C-alpha cells in the first residue's frame, strides 16, 4: 500500500468519525430539552413510577384506574387490532420456515460426519441443502419474523393504528411465494452460486416487491404518528427497512459485477444483510421489550444516539473482512478491518444501555419467558459482535477463516442473538393479538431449555473444532485427511446440539399452532416460567 492511499484512508476515517461525533453531539444537545418533555408524553398518564418488579413485593402493579389511563389502554388495544392480520400472517409464515429451515440445517449437519446419508439422490446433496437451510432461515424465518414484530411494534411506537394493513398482508403472500420458488430453484440445482444470493435473480424481484409493499403501511403510519419524539426502536426499524431494499437490489443485479468485484459485492451484501438488516431488527426489538417488561426507561438517550449512528457509519464497510487474504486490494481489506474493530463502539454503547437497564432486575428472567429470551439474545449480541471484531483481525482470521469457527460465530449471531430475541418477541406479541394466554407453561420451559442447551453444545463444539482445524491447516506437514478426521467427533456433537434445537422448534411450533387455533389449556393468568399470584407482564 502506498503512503498516498494510507493518507487518504486516514483523512477519510478521521473526517467521518469526527463528523459523526459532531452530529451526535448536535442532535443530543438540540433534542435534549425536547426529549425530556417528550419523555412525559410517552408515559400513559398515571403510569409513571409504577414499577412492576415482583422482587419488590409491596409495589403495586399499574392498574390503569384513571380516565386518561383507560383511554391510553383502549388506544393500545386498537393499535394492536389494526396490525393483527398482517402480524399474524408474517409470524405464522416465519414459524413455518423456521421448521423447514432448521430441518435442512440438521440434515446438512448429519451429512458432514456421515456423508453416505441420503447420498444417492440429487435432491438431498449437501451442495443443495446447505443453501436451502441458509436461505430458509435467513429470508424465511429471520426476515419474516422480524418484519412481523416490526409491524406489531410500529403502531405502538407511533401511537396510532397501522394504516394500509392490506399492503402488508399482500406483501407477506408475495414474499412467501418468493421463498417457495427460491428454495425450489435451489433444490433443482438452479442456484445463482453466490453465498447469501443463491436465489435466482428472476425470483429476487418478488422480495423487492414484497418488502416494498410492507414499507407502505410503515410510511403511512409514520406520517400519521401522534408522538413528537421517535423512540430509539423506531430509528432502527425505519433504517433497516430503507437499507434492505437497496442492498438486496444492488447485489442481485445480474451480470454487472464479474470476478473479484463480484466477490466483493457478494460479501459487502452478505455482511450488510447481517449488520444493516437483521441486527437493527433484533436490537430494535430488544430496545422495546426490555424497558417495557421492566417498566423502567432505557438508561441513556445519548448512548442510544451513539449506538445507532455509529452502527450506520461503520457497518456498511465491514463486508470485505470475509475476504481477508483474498485477491482484493489491500486498502479495501484494511478499511474493512478498521471498521470491524470500530464496530465495538455501537456494540458497547448498546450493551451499556441494555444491560444497564436490566441491572438490578436480573431476577425477572426467572419468571418472564419474553424477558429471558430477549435479554439472553441481547447478551449474545454483545458476545457475537465482540468476537466478530476479533475475528476480523488478520492474525486471528488467518486461523479461523475456512473453518467451523466461522459457523459457530454465525450461529451465535443468527441463533443465540437474533432467533432468541424473535422467540421472545413472539411470546410477547401473540397473547396481545389473540387475546388469550399461552396454553402451557411447561411447553415454553421445554422450548427454552432445548434450544439453550442445543445452541450451547453447537457453539462450544464448533468453536473448539474450528480453532484446532485452523491451526492444523496452517501446518503444511499435516495431511488434509487427518484434519478432516480430527473434526468428526465435534461435528457429531454439533448434530446433537442441532437435534435438540430442532426438537425445541417442534415444541414451539406445536404450541404456536395451539395458540393460533385457540385450543389447549385456557389459563387465566399470564403464562410464566413460575406460577405467581400477582399479574405481571409476559
Amino acid at each position, binding site marked *: 500500500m502506498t503512503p498516498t492511499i494510507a493518507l487518504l484512508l486516514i483523512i477519510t476515517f478521521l473526517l467521518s468519525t469526527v463528523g459523526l461525533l459532531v452530529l451526535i453531539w448536535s442532535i443530543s444537545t438540540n433534542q435534549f430539552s425536547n426529549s425530556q418533555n417528550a419523555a412525559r408524553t410517552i408515559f400513559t398518564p398515571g403510569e409513571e413510577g409504577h414499577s412492576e418488579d415482583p422482587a419488590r413485593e409491596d409495589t403495586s402493579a399499574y392498574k390503569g384506574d384513571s380516565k386518561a389511563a383507560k383511554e391510553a389502554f383502549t388506544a393500545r388495544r386498537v393499535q394492536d387490532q389494526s396490525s393483527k392480520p398482517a402480524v399474524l400472517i408474517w409470524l405464522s409464515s416465519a414459524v413455518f420456515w423456521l421448521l423447514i429451515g432448521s430441518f435442512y440445517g440438521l440434515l446438512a449437519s448429519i451429512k458432514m460426519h456421515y456423508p453416505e446419508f441420503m447420498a444417492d439422490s440429487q435432491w438431498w446433496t449437501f451442495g443443495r441443502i446447505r443453501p436451502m437451510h441458509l436461505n430458509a432461515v435467513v429470508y424465511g424465518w429471520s426476515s419474516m419474523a422480524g418484519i412481523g414484530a416490526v409491524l406489531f411494534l410500529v403502531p405502538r411506537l407511533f401511537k396510532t393504528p397501522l394504516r394500509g394493513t392490506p399492503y402488508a398482508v399482500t406483501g407477506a403472500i408475495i414474499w412467501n411465494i418468493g421463498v417457495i420458488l427460491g428454495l425450489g430453484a435451489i433444490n433443482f440445482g438452479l442456484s445463482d452460486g453466490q453465498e447469501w444470493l443463491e436465489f435466482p435473480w428472476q425470483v429476487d424481484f418478488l422480495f423487492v416487491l414484497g418488502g416494498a409493499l410492507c414499507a407502505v403501511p410503515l410510511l403511512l403510519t409514520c406520517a400519521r404518528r401522534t408522538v413528537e419524539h421517535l423512540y430509539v426502536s423506531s430509528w432502527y426499524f425505519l433504517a433497516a427497512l430503507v437499507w434492505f431494499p437497496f442492498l438486496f437490489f444492488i447485489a442481485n443485479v445480474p451480470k454487472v459485477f464479474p470476478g473479484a468485484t463480484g466477490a466483493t459485492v457478494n460479501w459487502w451484501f452478505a455482511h450488510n444483510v447481517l449488520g444493516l438488516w437483521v441486527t437493527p431488527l433484533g436490537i430494535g426489538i430488544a430496545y422495546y421489550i426490555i424497558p417495557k417488561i421492566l417498566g423502567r426507561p432505557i438508561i441513556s*438517550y445519548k448512548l442510544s444516539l451513539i449506538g445507532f449512528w455509529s452502527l450506520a457509519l461503520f457497518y456498511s464497510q465491514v463486508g470485505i473482512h470475509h475476504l481477508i487474504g483474498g485477491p482484493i486490494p489491500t486498502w479495501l481489506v484494511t478499511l474493512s478491518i478498521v471498521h470491524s474493530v470500530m464496530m465495538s463502539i455501537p456494540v458497547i454503547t448498546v450493551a451499556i444501555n441494555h444491560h444497564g437497564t436490566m441491572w438490578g432486575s436480573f431476577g425477572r428472567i426467572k419468571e418472564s419467558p419474553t424477558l429471558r429470551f430477549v435479554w439472553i439474545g441481547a447478551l449474545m449480541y454483545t458476545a457475537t459482535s465482540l468476537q466478530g471484531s476479533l475475528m476480523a483481525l488478520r492474525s486471528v482470521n488467518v486461523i479461523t477463516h475456512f473453518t467451523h469457527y466461522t459457523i459457530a460465530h454465525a450461529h451465535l449471531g443468527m441463533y443465540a442473538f437474533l432467533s432468541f430475541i424473535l422467540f421472545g418477541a413472539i411470546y410477547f406479541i401473540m397473547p396481545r393479538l389473540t387475546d388469550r394466554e399461552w396454553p402451557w407453561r411447561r411447553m415454553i420451559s421445554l422450548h427454552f431449555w432445548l434450544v439453550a442447551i442445543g445452541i450451547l453444545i453447537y457453539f462450544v463444539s464448533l468453536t473448539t473444532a474450528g480453532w484446532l482445524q485452523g491451526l492444523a491447516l496452517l501446518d503444511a506437514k499435516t495431511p488434509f485427511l487427518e484434519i478432516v478426521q480430527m473434526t468428526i467427533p465435534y461435528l457429531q456433537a454439533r448434530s446433537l446440539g442441532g437435534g435438540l434445537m430442532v426438537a425445541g422448534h417442534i415444541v414451539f411450533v406445536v404450541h404456536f399452532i395451539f395458540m393460533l387455533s385457540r385450543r389447549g389449556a385456557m389459563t387465566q393468568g399470564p403464562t410464566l416460567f413460575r406460577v405467581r399470584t400477582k399479574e405481571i407482564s409476559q
Partner: protein
Amino acid sequence: MSEKKYRAHQREGPEPEEGVREVPKLVFVYILILIIWGVGYYAWQIGKPMQGGDSRSVAIQPAINSENVATLIDGGAIYSIQCSACHQATGQGIPGAFPPLAGSEWVLADSAILVSILQDGLQGPIVVAGNTYNGVMPYFRGKLSSAEIAAVLTYIRSEWGNNADRIDPIMVDEHKTRFGERVPWTSDELIAEFGKP
C-alpha cells in the same frame, strides 16, 4: 370493559422511553483509543503489497533464467504447492485414489520415467506397490521450468525414506528435445520405452 378480556393489555407497563443518563467518560476514552489505533493500523499497512494475499497464499516462485541456480530452487516448496494436494505432505497419497510416492518403485526407478511423467502427464491404470490406481495426473510442461522439475523430482527421491540419485535439469531438457509435446503416458508405454521399474 370486562376484567377477563384483554388481560395481556391490562397488565402492561408503560411504553418504553429513554432516560437521561450521561455517557460514561470511559466510553469517550475508548472511542479515542480506537481512533488512534485506526490511524496507526492504516499507517502500518504502508509498504505492504497492493494486492491482497497473506501467509496462506501460494508463494510466488523466483524467476529462473539460468541453469546454475537450479540448486537454489526449493523442491520441497514446489512439492507442497503443486503435488501435496493429491500425494499428501507425507508422500503417502490417498488409498484408492492417489498413489504413494514414498517407497514407490516408479519414483526410485530410472530417472527418465519420472521426468516423462512430470513433463507429459500420466493416465490409465498403474500398479504401485502392489495396488492398482486408475486416474489422471496432469502434465507440468510449460508450468514448471526444467530446473524446477529437476528440483522437485530430486526432492521426492530423497524424502520419506526414499534414497535415489538426484535429477539434473539437463535430463529434462534432453527429454524435451526427444519427445516434444507428447500426449500423457500410460504405464504400459513407460515400461515399453524405459523398461520395467
